[in-house]
């Protein structure tokens, strides 16, 4: 596993520059928290790392083949159970029991038989986290993954991520310095270009 290198990244949307030559190294196997004011390009950075947005210029190297992403929105299949939502991405690589155990660890053990549509915002968030972690990618991207969770559940979810992503590269976008401190690792501050 190699470090991820972003060199001279240029990106603009509708003529508004988000990155104008951003250069950044994300150490492999470590956690990096990205912070900065709204509109500074935190989500764009994750989208570039995930390959969902192509930069206008510059180069990105070292991104592993498999990437997991907890998007700002939950992006769950609402009509299906939490277990099914996770197994949608893991397939048979992860057993139904293992998924149920992971959801139990995240405090969702009582809701395994209910469709995700009946879940609260915080419950959906945790399903999205379980899905990303169980996918087993070398790079995990978290875009405000703990938004909408109360303090207790936020800690529970962060502990779950820390316990199951040891040795993997984690990039976490957050507004909350406490979250960044709890997750540990390096903090990168993005400014306005």
């Amino acid at each position, binding site marked *: 596993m190699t470090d991820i290198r972003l060199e001279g990244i240029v990106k603009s949307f509708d003529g508004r520059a988000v990155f104008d030559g951003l250069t950044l190294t994300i150490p492999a196997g470590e956690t990096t928290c990205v912070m900065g004011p709204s509109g500074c390009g935190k989500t764009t950075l994750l989208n570039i790392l*995930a*390959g*969902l947005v192509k930069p206008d210029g510059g180069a990105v190297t070292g991104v592993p083949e*498999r*990437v*997991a*992403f907890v*998007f700002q*929105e939950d*992006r769950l*299949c*609402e*009509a*299906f*159970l939490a277990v*099914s939502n996770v197994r*949608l*991405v893991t*397939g048979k690589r992860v057993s139904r029991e293992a998924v149920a155990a992971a959801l139990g660890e995240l405090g969702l053990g009582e809701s395994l038989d209910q469709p995700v549509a009946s879940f609260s915002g915080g419950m959906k968030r945790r399903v999205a986290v379980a*899905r990303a972690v169980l*996918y087993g990618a070398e790079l995990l991207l978290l875009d405000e993954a703990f938004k909408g969770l109360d303090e207790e559940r936020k800690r529970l979810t962060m502990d779950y991520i820390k316990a199951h992503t040891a040795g993997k590269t984690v990039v976490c976008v957050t507004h909350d310095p406490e979250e960044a401190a709890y997750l540990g690792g390096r903090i990168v501050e993005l400014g306005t270009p």
Partner: protein
Amino acid sequence: MAKGPVQKALAILAALIVWQAAAELVGIDFLLASPLQVAARLATIWRESGFWSTVAFSMSRIVGGFMTAFILGIVLALLAGRFPLVETFLWPYVVTIRSVPVASFIIISLIWLTGRQLAVFISFLMVFPMIYANVLQGIKSADGRLLEMTALYRVPWTRRLLYVYAPNVQPYLTSACSVALGTAWKAGVAAEVIGVVDGSIGEKLYESKIYFMTADLLAWTVIIVLISVLFEKLFLFLMKKAFAGMEKL
């Protein structure tokens, strides 16, 4: 619009009274049979020899045409959803089928096909564009963010179909089937009448007209409506079960 069951029953009763009054006013059975005459005919018609074989003949062909259109409509819509070129190439056929009057198709089909194949083909033609267009619409309106998520996680297309597209397509397909089932019966029987297809419900309707047996004509009409409604309810129930069962796959 009548909503409650009591209101609906009262509305039906009122309509039957109007029909009975109209029949008595006309006073000529072969011009307008009364509901009582039709009910009396219905009580005996199903016991006549050949009744069940006639129903089975028409039903197998109309349902056959519907099912062929249902399956082909879904398959081609899936292909068109994935490969835009398929949609482009299918477009002239779909537009033609939709805009040409059913009577024209029936007459052309009489030249091409045997009477026994007629209802299958006509039902198919009427149902196919509805299923195809609605399923395609459902596919196109799938949540782009969910599709982006499944692409990132490299979810195979079959699973994407089941989890992302199927729940989206379900309301479109249900509403299309609800309309298409009735249309299949109407168009299928119309084809049998025009083609005077031997051994079909359409032939019975045609004979009723020739011999001025209005009570028979209306009794067969009631039978068509009953079979059509029962089949629609059964089909939509099974389809709902099938969609619910997808979770377990």
